């Protein structure tokens, strides 16, 4: 086994660190799914996983391929309608941590998963919101997991699917969004916090420079005075990820 982690593995590992034991987390598909299952297998065994499909308190025996995987149902604590998930769990304020990715993000943490180009005549039609908009509105903490590039970290999103800290000139508070908004952005180069509602780089991956990060970003980034160096996943974590959690490489491409 190569001991050098891939960017995906670093992202999954770093995202997992944001999850605490007993956190109620709304698990999305892809890397967030892997990060949650990694957290549960390591430092947060009581992580409480809820899927928008209606499965609550899941302990899947296999890595779920989709958020509606039957393995999420078997041995879960509860299965409820999607109406209940969105109304009684999410809108009610029970979700501590939400996870999002996207095609574009701006400095305020606004995310686009809808279209590239104009909405009425799109260059690329993306899947759309799914539950993303309401997850961004209601989660107390919102973790964003995205690879960096000038195409994805943009000055202005072509479309705001999910609200960040400030959109079209208004703050979340002014708009009445109950959740806390984006708390961390975990990328393949660095980790950002939000300060005064704007992204600020607080951690760099080992060997990554500010210049490299700025070069992969479409807007002028703020940096903490002394960004820390993100911890590298050890061999135990890599073994867990590669051999147990995602042996087929579904998410660790």
């Amino acid at each position: 086994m190569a001991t050098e982690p891939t960017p995906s593995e670093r992202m999954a590992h770093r995202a997992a660190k944001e999850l605490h034991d007993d956190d109620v987390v709304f698990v999305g598909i892809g890397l967030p799914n892997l990060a949650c299952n990694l957290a549960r297998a390591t430092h947060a065994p009581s992580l409480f996983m809820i899927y928008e499909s209606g499965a609550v308190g899941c302990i899947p025996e296999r890595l779920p391929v989709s958020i509606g995987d039957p393995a999420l149902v078997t041995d879960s604590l509860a299965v409820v309608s999607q109406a209940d998930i969105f109304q009684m769990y999410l809108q009610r304020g029970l979700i501590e941590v939400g996870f999002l990715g996207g095609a574009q993000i701006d400095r305020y943490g606004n995310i686009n998963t809808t279209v590239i180009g104009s909405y009425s005549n799109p260059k690329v039609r993306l899947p759309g919101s799914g539950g993303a908009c309401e997850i961004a509105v209601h989660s107390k903490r919102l973790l964003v997991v995205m690879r960096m590039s000038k195409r994805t970290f943009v000055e202005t999103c072509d479309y705001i699917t999910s609200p960040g800290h400030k959109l079209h000139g208004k703050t979340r508070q002014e708009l009445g969004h109950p959740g806390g908004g984006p708390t961390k952005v975990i990328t393949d180069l660095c980790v950002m916090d939000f300060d005064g509602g704007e992204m600020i780089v607080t951690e760099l991956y080992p060997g990554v420079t500010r210049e490299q990060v700025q070069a992969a970003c479409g807007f002028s980034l703020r940096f903490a005075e002394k960004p820390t160096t993100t911890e590298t996943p050890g061999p135990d974590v890599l073994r867990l990820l590669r051999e147990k959690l995602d042996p087929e490489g579904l998410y660790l491409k």
Partner: protein
Amino acid sequence: MADKLRSMKEAIADTVKDGESVVIDGFTHLICFAAGHEIIRQRRQDLTLVRLTPDLVYDQMIAAGCAKKLVFSWAGNPGVGSLHAMRRRTESSAKDRLAIEEYSHFGLLSRFLAGAAGLPFWPLKNYNGCDIAKTNEAIKFIACPYTGETIATVPALRPDVAVIHCQRADREGNAQVWGLYGSQKESAFAAKKVIVVAEEIVDTQVIRRDPNRTIVPGIIVRHVVHEPFGAHPSYVQGYYDRDNDFYVAWEDISRDEAKYQAYLEEFVYGVKGRAEYKQKMDAGVLAKLKAKPRMSEGVDYGY
């Protein structure tokens, strides 16, 4: 009691008319591909297809020319890629543009909730300042009469037809489901005409022995169809697993219009119905998908 059992062919022919709005519900679980394929075979046109997650079956209906409009909240092949027929008809290069009406999951679900509850609208805390509300004029905002805060609203949706796949139903349409519910109950109560499709048709006594499992009552059901394996490549908890390999393979098939049409020719137009479709499946695949039993215990309804 009315015996509503029909073949899929009869049920679709009698229920789904050109130009109508149709929901084939299910969230990953219980997506009735058999109904979608029958609609394609009967060459329905100008349908408005409604569903949180269009999935492959709606993409196939789009590719086959059944749809004029898609009402949805997430259109993709989960974890794999895009819905290519939909993309080809919605991106700027498209010739015959598909009309779309787009929500988030919570918003579209709320439209079903309003329709199911007989209310003209449904309120939700969402959308304020977001572009979804700017590009969909059906989304409005009201002030809460108590707190004054801004609350989004969506209008009721009353689709012409809802197709509900379930584990078991009786001949009157009393349908029981376990595992993921999706928005089946809400879309059934919202719809004007309901088709229940079941893996098993059971005696009404089976339903009555566990009434808390019934999610759709027969009184709102028009036809019942017995269609084992009717959800493949989607899945049915306790019956067969999701055919994840098919979803992955679909990416290649659907990217290429010729391959896509060849698939429809062979597996949709080329078969009479679901039984024949199932016969075309590889025995190894069927064996792999077959659910390994995990029985729950019964509970006591006595008094």
